[in-house]
């Protein structure tokens, strides 16, 4: 019997279980977000303050505003998401938490997934809930409100996911800022097109099923591929920095 013995020292005490681990990660992220709420609140306030520049800089005319409202709200949502992405992984990198996550043997994929979910729940979700107010202030046609909220609900999730990939690529640089925007912006193009396209269509009474089907497909694709890419980038950064 040359077979190596199973490690009797610990196996009895350790049993990996999936849901407790997900619950633990989500709980930690929410706690961190709650304790540092200004980091999340400021982009949302930015979201609102940009709004006053539109009538000041373009025109207060309701007709013009209502025609540009769908795209404008979407662009603002996109920028607000970008602003809040900066510190997504950097804090955990700096204080060594990412090291601990690695040596725990847990899957980085699910750790990233939990971070994205929490990020979306405190940026994309509130943006979605606030969007009718923005629509009102920009004289968005009433027919477009449901499409606006639904497209933001799906679209901001994809924005968070793609943004997490960008943030993970910069994690060991400890600086994001403009470079993060530069990397993520081109990847946001399809989301913006179909998100604002859905709202535009709804505003003029056209069908929106096509746009929502594609937005839904993007959500699924992003859920699978984005955490995969982000996890790979984080692991490479940790092991080579």
């Amino acid at each position, binding site marked *: 019997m040359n077979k190596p013995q199973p490690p009797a020292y610990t196996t009895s005490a350790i049993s990996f279980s999936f849901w407790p681990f997900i619950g633990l990660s989500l709980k930690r992220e929410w706690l961190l977000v709650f304790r540092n709420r200004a980091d999340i609140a400021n982009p949302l306030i930015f979201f609102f303050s940009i709004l006053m520049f539109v009538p000041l800089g373009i025109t207060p005319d309701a007709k013009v505003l209502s025609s540009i409202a769908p795209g404008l709200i979407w662009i603002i949502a996109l920028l607000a998401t970008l602003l809040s992405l900066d510190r997504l992984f950097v804090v955990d990198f700096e204080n060594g938490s990412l090291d601990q996550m690695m040596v725990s043997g847990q899957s980085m994929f699910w750790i990233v997934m939990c971070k994205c979910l929490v990020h979306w729940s405190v940026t994309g979700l509130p943006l979605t809930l606030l969007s009718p107010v923005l629509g009102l202030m920009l004289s968005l046609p009433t027919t477009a409100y449901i499409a606006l909220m639904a497209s933001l609900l799906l679209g901001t999730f994809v924005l968070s996911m793609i943004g997490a*990939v960008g943030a993970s*690529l*910069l994690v*060991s*640089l400890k600086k994001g800022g403009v*470079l993060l925007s*530069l*990397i993520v*912006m*081109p*990847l946001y*193009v*399809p989301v913006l*097109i*179909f998100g604002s*396209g859905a709202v535009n269509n709804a505003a003029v009474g056209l069908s929106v099923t096509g746009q929502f089907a*594609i937005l839904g497909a*993007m959500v699924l694709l992003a859920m699978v*591929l984005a955490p995969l*890419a982000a996890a*790979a*980038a984080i692991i*490479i*950064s940790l092991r*080579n*920095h």
Partner: protein
Amino acid sequence: MAWQWFHRLGSPKWFYEKTSLWLPYLSIASVLLFVVGAIWGLGFAPEDYKQGNSFRIIYVHVPSSIVAMAGYYIMAVAGAVGLIWKMKLSFVVMRCAAIIGIGLTFLSLFTGAVWGKPTWGTYWHWDARIMFTFVLLLLYISIMALHNAYAKNDLADKICAILALVGTVNIPIIYKSVDWWYSLHQPATIKITDESTIAASMAYPLGIMVVAFYALYSLLLILHVRAEILQRERKTSWVKNIVLSVSQKR
């Protein structure tokens, strides 16, 4: 072993020595193709019945657009090979392809603008192709910017390879969505001629120019990779020997 050539290909020294032999042939081939394609296209191809002589810019515009697009995939594949087989040479190719890609997409946008003025009366019009090329330029620039942000080549290479792969997944989606976006917004006043109706006498020189651009691309890529290899391998003895032998000849 069957894999030996593959690993040998991954050796910067082997690459440097082999390409020294190929370079003259490749240079001659690309110059010949360019001269033939350009003289045929600019001098002998018939005038366009609507656009006159100004259409001849497609002999630069179309090949540069095609190779710029293909270059992204060359870059991404090089990055993937580097990640999977841990091949440093492949990462060097990726980085150099990004720089050349920026040049080509810029050339494509510039010639497109120059072509646009006499043909549609405006230098810049946001149509699907311009939008896509613009996004492609940003994708290339983001790879370069990301690489430059890292101090260590090793880490920068791997991180950029991931971004290149993410871009590869995105490019078809961006392409399709930009196409769809423009089909909704296309104003009736501007109608772009369909290039599939191009006459054979115009198409042959265009084909030659596309091949010429591919040859030029390979040439530039190899030259750039060689320079980058010398830079990165400057501490090794074989590079020192090359530098010494060059300086002794002078």
